[in-house]
């Protein structure tokens, strides 16, 4: 085997310029794919992270039918106290769950005594909410304290600007409860939240007990429970597990009480994320095509140029399998060299991009700094694809070489 490696390697060195050109083509392909995967993947992860860690949570549990009417924030579709307690009991037993936070979501009027507008609010336990969505405080504009007390409100930045509301101002929130009675409550503005893309990205926050008071709720009826998992990678298996666990809980009519949704079902950004994945897939396909065509072309040339040599080694008794291996190894070396060089150059460029910092705007968010990263598995997978395709591309010319009649090959001029 060592001799096969030696011959294959020396044959590549025989045509240095051609080898260099082909390997360079593979290298460039690998670099582009790594950069694309790195930038698009980092963008996707950043946006997903921002949404899940500062707003949605990894997944949410609602009362069955709530999500279909979420735009109206229907109070009559909140979870009853008993249902929430049951859910709380189940969630506390799940080792995958890092934290969960009950929320009362409702719409109301927001008044500065001068101007009035509508507002969507989340009533939360601040300590639970900050454990379930730990990046929420990062959305608070500078100079504000990072906790929420009773009687305080965090308002969206757009509202703060348009209504000219500043920190420490007193405002009134007026809301109608599920029975139709209207109530109002005064709040002190304790924070201004930067907007994020997605549903709830421009909602305000108050303490859950204030929400209950505003809505004249005697017992807590939560609109949703946001969950954070210890391992984001466990999202889908855990979602399925939770669905199974909750499917047994039915109401008097025998219908399920709960519905479980991952962030993917809650955010339209999931479609963008899928598009990014699809584009990455097509970019990989293009890489495969580039590697396949370039390596096959070189190997066909290599076989054609060495017909007499193939005849000689076949005549002196080299078995067809060894001749095939010799050419396949050449393709393997070409692919491996190209892939390794591409990995190295790609990683260096990613490192430089990180140092320089890519900024971009997304929706209303401006000046987002992208931290480009790529997982070791992505690098390994891309390299293995390139190497595998190089071998596949070499197979046809190698097979042709191995099947050559020595007598005809020796006569070749």
């Amino acid at each position, binding site marked *: 085997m060592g001799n096969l490696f030696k011959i294959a390697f020396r044959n590549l060195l025989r045509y240095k310029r051609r080898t260099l050109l082909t390997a360079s083509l593979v290298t460039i392909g690998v670099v582009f794919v790594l950069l694309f995967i790195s930038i698009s993947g980092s963008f996707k992860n950043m946006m997903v992270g921002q949404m899940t860690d500062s707003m949605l949570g990894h997944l949410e549990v609602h009362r069955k039918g709530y999500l279909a009417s979420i735009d109206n924030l229907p109070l009559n579709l909140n979870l009853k106290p008993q249902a929430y307690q049951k859910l709380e009991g189940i969630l506390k037993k799940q080792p995958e769950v890092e934290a969960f936070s009950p929320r009362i979501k409702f719409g109301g009027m927001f008044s500065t005594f001068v101007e009035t507008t509508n507002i969507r609010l989340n009533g939360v336990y601040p300590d639970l909410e900050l454990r379930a969505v730990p990046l929420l405080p990062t959305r608070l504009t500078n100079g504000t304290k990072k906790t929420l007390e009773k009687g305080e409100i965090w308002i969206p930045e757009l509202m703060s600007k348009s209504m000219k509301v500043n920190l420490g101002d007193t405002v009134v929130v007026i809301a109608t409860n599920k029975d139709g009675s209207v109530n109002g409550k005064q709040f002190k503005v304790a924070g201004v939240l930067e907007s994020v893309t997605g549903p709830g990205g421009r909602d305000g926050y108050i303490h859950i007990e204030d929400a209950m008071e505003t809505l004249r709720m005697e017992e807590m009826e939560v609109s949703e429970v946001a969950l954070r998992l210890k391992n984001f990678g466990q999202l889908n298996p855990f979602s399925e597990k939770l669905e199974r666990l909750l499917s047994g809980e039915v109401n008097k009519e025998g219908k399920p009480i709960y519905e479980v949704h991952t962030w993917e079902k809650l955010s339209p950004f999931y479609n963008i994320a899928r598009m990014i994945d699809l584009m990455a897939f097509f970019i990989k396909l293009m890489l495969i095509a580039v590697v396949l065509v370039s390596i096959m072309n070189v190997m066909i040339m290599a076989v054609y140029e060495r017909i007499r040599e193939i005849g000689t080694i076949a005549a*002196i*008794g080299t078995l067809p399998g060894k001749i095939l291996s010799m050419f396949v190894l050449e393709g393997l070396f070409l692919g491996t060299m190209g892939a390794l060089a591409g990995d190295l150059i790609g990683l260096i460029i990613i490192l430089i991009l990180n140092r320089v910092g890519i900024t971009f705007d997304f929706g209303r968010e401006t000046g987002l700094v992208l931290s480009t990263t790529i997982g070791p598995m992505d690098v390994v997978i891309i390299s293995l694809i390139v190497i595998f395709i190089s071998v596949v591309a070499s197979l046809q010319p190698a097979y042709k070489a191995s099947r050559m009649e020595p007598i005809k090959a020796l006569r070749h001029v």
Partner: protein
Amino acid sequence: MGLVVAENITKIYSVVATKVSKDYQAGEIAIRALNEVSFEIDPASFVSFVGPSGSGKTTLLNLIGCLDKPTEGKLMVAGTDVLHLDRKQSASFRGNNLGFIFQDFNLLPVLTVFENIEYPLLMVQNIPGGERKKRILTLLEAVGMIEQKNKYPDQISGGQKQRVAIARALVTNPKLVLADEPTANLDHKTAFLVLESMKKMRNEFQTTFIFSTHDQKIVGEAEIVFTLEDGELTGKQVKGGKKNG
């Protein structure tokens, strides 16, 4: 009381050809390159097939070398009926029983002199390292190429290349070495030196050498000369013996 031992002694020839014919198809025309050729070659012979271009020398050498198959007839090489060997068996048979010397030397350009000789031992016969080195050095010494063992083919002369080719052909201890016009690309002086090397190898290793040539000056070096004309064997001359045909 006397002891009587009866023995059936069957002579083992290097090559036995019985009415061997070979046809080629050139478009719609069938060309008979060899026509019912029959001969035997003893082990350790130094044999030459001579004849003008197109007489069938190369075709016959290809058949003996299991690179091609006869259309008709029977051909035994080193005691094996080579007619029914498949592709893989043919390759294996060639690797273990035959050595080849080509007109254009056909050394692998990416391998050194040493590595070229080593190639069949490594890639065909899987001989262990120590034994391999011993055999190669013995042959390099015998063909006078020990000083050039680390040179690549493009760094040595034509005569030297052919001597390396002889060493490569002999390194597997073949029963038979086939050389198609081995001196065609060499000047006369070098050609004689190469033939001398071949004869020396024959004497040393008792290997049968069969070569083809159309050079009458070279023919004189062979001990047995078969003459081919238009695909037919027209004569056999044994040096110092009678002329048949």
